[in-house]
């Protein structure tokens, strides 16, 4: 019986082998086609000073998982620290803190690899922070030792940097962190030695002009961030263990401390981030090895969410939100990892909005710098 069945089947196949081939190919070819689409991901880059390189990861948007890019880390200058990704997602800039230069990299969006475009661009002494305006047309570099800010215009097609007229612009002693308004109109700068925020208006040519006066915050001002709505400046005061929040006068750039500020944080807050909806605010507390979470009302007033603080990142030195508002990423210095936290954005699971859940961590291998740059797609 078995023999009969197999013989019959074979004869049918033999007579119809031409059709069989077509059927076979029709069956096989889709195997290569069905998975042509790519899952949504972001690319993440951070400086690794001891390796003189940039570590690269791909983040799965659905899980927050970090997958190292083959070939990572990618060679940069000496001791790369701050990194920023251009809004086009085509270019990455890394500040080499010992070289006093800026490296420009082209990003291969499919593979995630970086290719440096030389020569490097000179900047001031010990560049420690960088920001790009939303249009990606100007790059601002805070030079800590030379106490100034270098401003570069960005060639949108090549990514090349050209220093604007008048750059560098002097700022108060030893700036370490900056934030720019979403409109690209004002730049705010902090220096840990001075308990104040310094404001600068940005001209159409990229030149900086200081907004008169300075705006008091707590001692040890370290991390600074502006929420996507562009209404408030948030400063982590690492010595006072507080968070200062100041409202922005969009017409003048002048800052006004909001009612109730400063607000309590954990120990040694060094970095602050706000989610894309401007609803949740997170502070990385390096000293207490945790993250403080707040919900924020329309007046900018933060309220601690319940069950806090959130552990999982030891000695967090930097924190940032994922562009889709699903995750918060913290750089853990002592464990040499990037830690992913899931933001609870639904009450259907019985949880509290804005709370964080440790998801996973990815090894960097060496001590990471205090900066993590993400592509938006």
């Amino acid at each position, binding site marked *: 019986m*078995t*023999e009969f069945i*197999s*013989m019959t*089947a*074979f004869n049918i196949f*033999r007579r119809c*082998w031409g059709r069989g*081939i077509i059927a*076979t*190919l029709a069956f*096989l*070819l889709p*195997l*290569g086609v*069905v*998975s*042509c*689409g*790519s*899952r949504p*991901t972001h690319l993440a880059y951070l400086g690794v000073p001891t*390796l*003189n*390189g940039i570590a*690269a*990861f*791909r983040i799965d948007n659905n899980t927050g998982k970090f*997958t*190292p*890019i*083959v*070939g*990572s*880390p*990618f*060679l940069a200058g000496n001791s790369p620290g701050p990194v920023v990704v251009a809004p086009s997602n085509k270019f990455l800039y890394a500040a080499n803190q010992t070289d006093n230069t800026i490296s420009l*990299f082209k990003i*291969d*969006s*499919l*593979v*995630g*690899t*970086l*290719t*440096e475009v030389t020569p490097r661009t000179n900047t001031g002494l010990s560049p420690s922070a960088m920001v790009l305006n939303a249009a990606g047309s100007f790059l601002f570099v805070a030079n800590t030792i030379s106490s100034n800010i270098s401003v570069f215009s960005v060639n949108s097609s090549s990514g090349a940097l050209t220093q604007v007229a008048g750059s560098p612009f002097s700022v108060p002693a030893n700036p370490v962190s900056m934030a720019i308004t979403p409109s690209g109109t004002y730049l705010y700068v902090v220096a840990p030695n001075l308990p104040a925020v310094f404001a600068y208006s940005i001209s159409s040519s990229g030149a900086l002009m200081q907004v008169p006066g300075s705006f008091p915050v707590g001692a040890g001002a370290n991390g600074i961030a502006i929420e996507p709505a562009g209404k408030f400046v948030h400063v982590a005061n690492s010595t006072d263990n507080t968070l200062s929040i100041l409202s922005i006068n969009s017409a003048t750039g002048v800052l006004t401390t909001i009612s109730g500020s400063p607000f309590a944080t954990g120990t040694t807050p060094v970095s602050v981030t706000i989610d894309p909806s401007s609803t949740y605010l997170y502070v990385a507390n390096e000293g207490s090895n945790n993250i403080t979470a707040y919900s924020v009302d329309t007046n900018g007033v933060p309220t601690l969410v319940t069950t806090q603080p959130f552990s999982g990142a030891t000695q967090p030195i930097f924190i940032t939100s994922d562009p889709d508002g699903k995750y918060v990423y913290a750089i853990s210095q002592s464990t040499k990892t990037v830690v992913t936290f899931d933001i609870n954005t639904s009450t259907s699971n019985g949880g509290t909005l804005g709370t964080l859940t440790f998801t996973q961590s990815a090894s960097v291998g060496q001590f990471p710098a205090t900066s993590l740059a993400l592509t938006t797609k």
Partner: protein
Amino acid sequence: MNIDREGIVRPKSLLVIVGFLSILFSTQLSRAQEASRFDVFGGYSYMRFDSRPLGFASDSNLNGWNAAVAGNITLKWGVFLDASGHYGQELTIYNFLIGPQYSFRRDKSRFFVHGFIGKAQNKVNVTTRINGDLESVGKAYGGGGGFDYDLKPRISIRVFQADYLHSDTYGLSQNDFRVSAGLVFHFGHIGHPRKL
């Protein structure tokens, strides 16, 4: 057919196909009483390379070549050596494989299944790096099968050959899928003399 949510073809699927063909034809295809001593194959090959573990945004579609020499020890059993190269803008993939091959012959048709082990030599084409070369060599293994049809006594067309390839490179595992087609040239003979 097992295609998971990511669209990746799992080895189990190919094993089912190969197993099905084996059962279907194993009882009768041994009727053929002659075979060539050596079969030399060369042709086009497509590979679906599992590049996501390397950090790629998606798997990679690669084109290239596939060549093999099969030595038939008996009418059914032989040993084959296989080499293939597949190329894309970011990837260059080579596989060098050896393994047993089982054939079922019937008139002008020949079906075969095989398993293999060997080496994979994978290279990601980037120019800036720190940790040495981005070429990695590792073990490879897998299995598959195909179908040949005689055009002339000494020449057949390989209508298709489908293989699952597992490779371990860069300290990671890749599960790849390869499809090849081309011409097969026959040399020598075993069993009853082939009518030329």
